[in-house]
């Protein structure tokens, strides 16, 4: 699905990703944890194609294609989805209208006819039920005036609508209350299937109780310094990052 080799990226001359290696197979769920400022959001932004970052080295293969060579919109149309840590507001544009545009742009890219308005609404209604989304949110301006938790739920709803092959969730659990966390996790679990992979960035083991990952990686100073299975997250919950930091410093 996604194969990252020796990925290095910098911003304004400052190196942030220092050689990332990661291999995600179809159907797998990978969790990335790590202290603040480690480069987690940077990794997701680079994968999504944000052009503020300069990729200085490395290759990324996404479903047999050179990901770094594609425009951000083409990456999305090929099936890459990023749930933003800080979703953006677009005043005056409803989630409905936004998603209709997004879906039809993707269909155009794939050489398909635009979706009929009625089919789209039907599709959306079924996804809203599945994700337990409230009607009032989808008719309002996208993310405008949404609470932190509502924004995150809206990201997951968009993911459900766009049916990506690889979904990157950047701290989607932050800011969610306990019920919302359960809903969001249930939503993600419903979307899990053998052809869809997830890269879940989180600070909290709590989320991983609901979305049980196949692998857990620790990102520190722009490198993956430790990988393991779900139990690694539990260990981190208890011990924090200091022991890993020490291991890294000792190795230098």
């Amino acid at each position, binding site marked *: 699905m996604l194969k990252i080799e020796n990925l290095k990226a910098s911003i304004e001359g400052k190196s942030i990703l220092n050689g990332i290696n990661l291999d995600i197979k179809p159907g797998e769920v990978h969790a990335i944890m790590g202290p603040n400022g480690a480069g987690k959001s940077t990794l997701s932004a680079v994968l999504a*194609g*944000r052009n*503020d970052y300069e990729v200085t080295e490395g290759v990324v293969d996404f479903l047999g294609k050179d990901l770094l060579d594609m425009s951000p919109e083409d990456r999305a*149309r090929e099936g890459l989805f990023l749930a933003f840590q800080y979703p953006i507001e*677009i005043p005056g544009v409803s989630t409905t209208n*936004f998603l209709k545009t997004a879906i039809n*742009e993707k269909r155009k*890219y794939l050489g398909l006819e635009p979706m009929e308005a009625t089919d789209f609404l039907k599709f959306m209604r079924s996804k809203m039920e599945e994700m337990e989304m409230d009607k009032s949110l989808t008719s309002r301006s996208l993310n405008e005036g949404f609470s932190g938790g509502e924004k995150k739920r809206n990201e997951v709803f968009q993911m459900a609508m766009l049916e990506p092959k690889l979904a990157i969730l950047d701290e989607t659990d932050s800011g969610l209350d306990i019920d919302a966390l359960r809903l969001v996790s249930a939503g993600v679990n419903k979307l899990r299937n053998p052809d869809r992979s997830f890269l879940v960035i989180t600070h909290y083991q709590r989320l991983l109780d609901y979305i049980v990952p196949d692998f857990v990686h620790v990102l520190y100073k722009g490198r993956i310094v430790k990988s393991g299975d779900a139990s690694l997250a539990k260990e981190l919950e208890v011990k924090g990052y200091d022991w890993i930091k020490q291991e890294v410093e000792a190795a230098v």
Partner: protein
Amino acid sequence: MSEPEVDIIDQVVSQEYKYGFVTDIEMDTAPKGLNEDIVRFISAKKNEPEWMLEYRLKAFRYWLKMEEPNWQNFNYPKINYQDIIYYAAPKQKIALDSLDQVDPELLKTFEKLGISLLEQKRLTGVAVDAVFDSVSIATTFKEQLKEKGVIFCAISEAVHKHPDLVKKYLSSVVPYTDNYFAALNSAVFSDGSFVYIPKGVRCPMELSTYFRINAENTGQFERTLIIADEGSYVSYLEGCTAPMRDENQLHAAVVELIALEKAEIKYSTVQNWYPGDKEGKGGIYNFVTKRGICEGAYAKISWTQVETGSAITWKYPSCILKGDYSTGEFFSVAVTNNAQVADTGTKMIHIGKHTKSRIVSKGISAGKSHNSYRGLVKVNKKAEHARNYTQCDSMLIGDRSGAHTFPYIEVNNNTATLEHEASTSKIGEDQIFYCSQRGIGLEEAISLIVNGFCKEVLNQLPMEFAVEAQKLLAVSLEGSVG
């Protein structure tokens, strides 16, 4: 602004104006220049009664003594008023009774503009008056309107057929002494639309005038007069285009609206005159005086405008709220790109008690264009409990464009309530990235964001036109960003 955005701005540069063609048709024109003889010539062409000619001459003599205004927030090359042709009309018999008599070239022209004058293809529910250079070509649905007593015709026709109404109301809202361009228009106005809605009648369809400047070196000076009698309602739309030409052309129209007691007039404009090329060569100077009066109690006038074209737009559709409890509204979207300039806004003059006004202005500037909102809210001494709400939002695309707001307030009665809100935003890289991450490409993203920004105003337009306006916004901003 960060690097990447600049890159993309430079990348996408082409902007096409798809209405830039010229119709090849035999014209009857006045000689260039302006003097009393030209005024007489125009009046004679229209076979006008003496009183109309007198009015024109008075306006002309007054105009001669006036100075061109210079308080605007932009510069434009001096206009040589002797270098303009003030009358140009397709050579054709004057009284047209049926569309069969209209030159096929003209029908084709309007067809190409998406305005069909032929029975079978007409937009249902919209009656159209088509004005080509200085004359009205055809008015559709006349018969159906007549049944309700609605008069919708060329103003030159109204001068002959409804002289009492014209005499009573023409110049009653915008006197020729009002301003330089109003005086000029009063002297040389060629054609335009006349509307009268009788007492208690709800006009059964949208009325629409489509203005087309075709001839070279010609100015367009149309005159529109709309009277809504007590308790009546009308929704009126105005659209316009012009060929691409290297020289600037002057458009100085006057629009007067009169709403009597409990009457409502909704006036919408989708302005798409040729804006000039990327460097600012050519394009229409759009200097228009539009004003409405709520003459009676509970009357209401709403202006909605979507301004995308013209090299320079300089207009302030205004409301005089004379009747108690009357309402004035102004909804505006002004888009400027490349070297365009727009200085637009409104005046709300509160005279009656409990009068209300609402202003929603959305300015979008791209390229190196300038977009100004200029508005006056005036509350007279006797206007007890007047209310105004003003909202001015500007959106900048790129970092070479400018947005300016000049809100003027004059309150002479302390029971008035005025609220003002203003904001300036930029289409952010964040918003564009967010869209692109969902698979939405750049141009589509801009159009989505801009349409969202203007939503409140676009919602005011009748359905068919809202869709048109949305497309127009996208086209106007093509190549602007970002």
